């Protein structure tokens, strides 16, 4: 069988050098997506007519477009309208694209998380003389976070893998490096298998972190 294990091990280290750029893409996009998603969720949950609909439109729009198309619109399309954007780096464009996309998913996840917190928690806060903002930040969000964590984790796992699309903007991350090695040495199976296994490893690592995060967050609720 035409399979070279030795070669796989050799290129593993070479490809692994690009783990940091993949992680930078994933983590920065995720942090931004969490912030935007939370704001959108709170807006959609507020009963202020008009902006509630805007939040709905935001979610529908960015959830409805393929990530690849979104990236192309931002990186190749926008500079046509705004020439000043032509100096935008590919990395920036990718992070913007991923953040918009993931935030639309997270907004719905967070909204479900917020709504899963018993209404009595808000009432108790108001009745003891706290302000809504204080009740949200100290009582409701911590409880919603626990409920939203599994679905948020899924979104992050998808994001880690979706960052491979950044190669289309000319960013050299895990997948792009693999593609280059493969086309140079014609060992497609071994190379892409290594790339795939590295993604898997990253996902396993994250799942492990999430498990501890969940234990930590659910500490107050255990009997």
């Amino acid at each position: 069988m035409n399979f070279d294990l030795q070669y796989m091990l050799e290129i593993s280290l070479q490809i692994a050098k690009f783990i940091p750029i993949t992680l930078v893409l994933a983590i920065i996009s995720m942090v931004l997506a969490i912030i935007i998603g939370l704001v959108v969720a709170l807006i959609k949950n507020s009963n202020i007519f008009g902006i509630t609909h805007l939040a709905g439109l935001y979610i529908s729009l960015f959830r409805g477009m393929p990530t690849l198309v979104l990236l192309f619109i931002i990186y190749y399309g926008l500079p046509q309208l705004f020439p000043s954007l032509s100096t935008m780096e590919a990395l920036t464009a990718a992070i913007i694209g991923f953040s918009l996309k993931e935030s639309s998913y997270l907004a719905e996840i967070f909204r479900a998380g917020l709504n899963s917190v018993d209404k009595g928690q808000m009432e108790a806060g108001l009745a003891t003389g706290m302000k809504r903002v204080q009740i949200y930040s100290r009582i409701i969000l911590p409880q919603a976070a626990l409920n939203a964590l599994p679905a948020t984790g899924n979104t992050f796992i998808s994001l880690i893998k979706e960052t491979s699309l950044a190669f289309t903007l000319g960013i050299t991350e895990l997948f792009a490096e693999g593609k280059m090695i493969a086309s140079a040495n014609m060992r497609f199976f071994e190379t892409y298998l290594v790339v795939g296994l590295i993604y898997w490893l990253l996902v396993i690592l994250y799942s492990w972190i999430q498990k501890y995060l969940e234990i930590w967050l659910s500490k107050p609720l255990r009997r």
Partner: protein
Amino acid sequence: MIKVRNLTKHFDDKQVLNDINLDIRTGEVVAIIGPSGSGKSTLLRCLNLLEKPNSGTIEIKDVKLDTQKYKERDAYQLRQQTAMVFQHYNLFKNKTALRNVIESLLVSKKMKKEEAIQIGVDLLKRVGLEKQAKQYPATLSGGQQQRVSIARALAVKPHAILFDEPTSALDPELVNEVLQVIRELAKDDTTMVIVTHEMQFAKEVADHVIFMADGHIIEQGTPEQVIEHSLNPRTQRFLRQMGDETDGAARQKRM
């Protein structure tokens, strides 16, 4: 002092509170009784604007509010005057018993942490739960949770405490520990408005009893007047039904 004038509230087209007028003196313990759906809990929840009344005025201590035109800031001011004990306790699930008691002291009253903890520990001692200070609500029994919630209500030194069926969600053997705490408060002249189904308890602690049905105050007066010697047929029928239930429960226990 709590003064309510011409309070009305409807959910969609169902009238829940019908032109309610109410006067509660400082230090008075008022029990509101009546069949379920009579509007007693809604009335209580209107007093701190957890329900938004449709019209009428509410005055508590020196904050007066027209329920047809108020801002979030006015609601906040009015809520500062009272604290509430809920049927389902509503303790903050992500906070320990002690933190539940002192949270609003730290957040709204901007009190120093050491000072707040001292108050919190004293209050937990008062409801007999100083040992449970570091426990989370999920690890406490219903009765313990309700006692923590009473301590939380006391912490803000409210002008009045509103009790919304404080024992209705409790297992029968846990009811008394909560009632005992409320009895102690009544002795200290804490102003309290208690919505309750515990007739015996209402008779014992209340200075004034209000009987509500169908969104109206049907009758009010001393416990003797309303619970013992009511001349109103609506009140009599309700008390008879309550009596049957209690007898029934007693019978079941004997069997």
